């Protein structure tokens, strides 16, 4: 085959412009792969056709690009560089938001932990108190020999109120201070048992800060009445001060 003749036959142009038959096309493709000069002639004509088309371009109506992108399910905006800037900003804000949330979460966590510690300690203390009270109540309730003497406030302190639990079998005496005014530092409450009309010292009270505390007092064989006076700190076996509460078993 004379290649130059083939090239100048018009097959190259016919092929490129889509005017050749299927048979001519497949033959041309084979020859093109075989002869570089045919390939060269093809590419040269393609370039001149492209240049010619570019030189005769006609402006496309605005908005057509958007229509095309809508149709392919894309977004024309995404192909613009602004999109990457927007994405960066979004990412920055997202990271900042995450850091703020993380810091907040850590602080919250920390303060919860502190609160938890406090509550655990309080619960522990309450548990100890409860255990002590239960112990006391067992002592009092589980024993049929226990007598109770309710002591009401006298005219000088009507709000005052205390209770004596007296074990008639073992002679143990317990005092429950329900309500007594806080004494001055140099004063102390003292419990008295009246035996045969005479006051017998049952002990000085070291008032605890804790409410409803049960105090173990001195033993008493028999008693017709009980009373609490306010005495000087470290008072002896004879009462001098005013009576705050008194009562009979």
């Amino acid at each position, binding site marked *: 085959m004379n290649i130059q003749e083939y090239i*100048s*036959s*018009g*097959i*190259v*142009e*016919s092929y*490129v*412009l*889509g*005017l050749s*038959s299927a048979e001519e096309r497949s033959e041309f*493709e084979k020859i093109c*792969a075989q002869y570089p000069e045919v390939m060269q002639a*093809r*590419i040269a*004509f*393609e*370039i*001149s*056709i*492209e240049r*010619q*088309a*570019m030189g*005769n*371009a*006609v*402006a*496309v*109506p605005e908005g*057509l*690009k958007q*229509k*095309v*992108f809508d*149709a*392919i399910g*894309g*977004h*024309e905006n*995404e*192909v*613009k*560089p602004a*999109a*990457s800037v927007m*994405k960066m900003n979004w990412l920055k804000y997202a990271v900042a938001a995450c850091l703020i949330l993380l810091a907040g979460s850590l602080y919250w966590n920390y303060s919860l932990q502190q609160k938890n510690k406090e509550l655990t300690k309080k619960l522990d203390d309450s548990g100890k108190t409860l255990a002590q009270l239960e112990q006391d109540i067992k002592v009092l309730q589980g024993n049929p020999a226990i007598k109770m003497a309710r002591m009401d406030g006298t005219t000088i302190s009507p709000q005052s109120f205390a209770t004596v639990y007296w074990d008639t079998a073992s002679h143990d005496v317990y005092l429950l201070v329900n309500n007594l005014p806080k004494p001055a530092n140099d004063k102390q409450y003292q419990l008295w048992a009246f035996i045969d009309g005479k006051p017998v010292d049952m002990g000085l009270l070291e008032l605890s800060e804790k409410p409803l505390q049960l105090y173990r007092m001195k033993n008493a064989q028999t008693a017709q009445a009980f009373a609490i006076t306010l005495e000087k700190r470290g008072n002896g076996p004879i009462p001098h001060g005013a009576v705050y509460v008194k009562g009979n078993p």
Partner: protein
Amino acid sequence: MITKSSYSEQELVALLQQQNQQAFGYLYDNYANALHGIILSIVKENETASDVLQEVFINIWKKIRSYDPEKGRLFTWMLNVARNAAIDKIRSREYRDNLKNLPIPETPDLNIGSDLKPVVEDVGLKKILRKLKEEQRVLIDLSYFQGYTHEEISKALNIPLGTVKTRIRSALTQLRNMID
């Protein structure tokens, strides 16, 4: 996302075949007007040409995987997609029915079948066609711009098929020299 101002043809084709929208945007920006010109040389109305161009780009996006660089350059492939779409449009019944309502343009008195009227305007390649001999010009117009097969032209013009082919080829080589 990296924005590129230009691609090699190989890069562009690879990205398009991966359905890269940015590359497709670049393709549109660079070639829409040229393909619009081609379509307008076949389809007469602006609105129809816009519709065809839209359809062409959607087809390019959908069919890019069937493009084979061995068989031609990317632009050649796109040009043929555009030409085929434009010819399909003017040969559609809908388009022909609409044309009947338009005034019949004055055409040179050519001794051809009433169905085959060359429509030669001064757009793009058609401008160059004017330099061809009339018999060649008619053949190129009918085959390239109106999409008639060599057989159809042979029958309509009552010219042997071999002669149609030879004359078209000869016209094309002359066209090529005019373009270069």
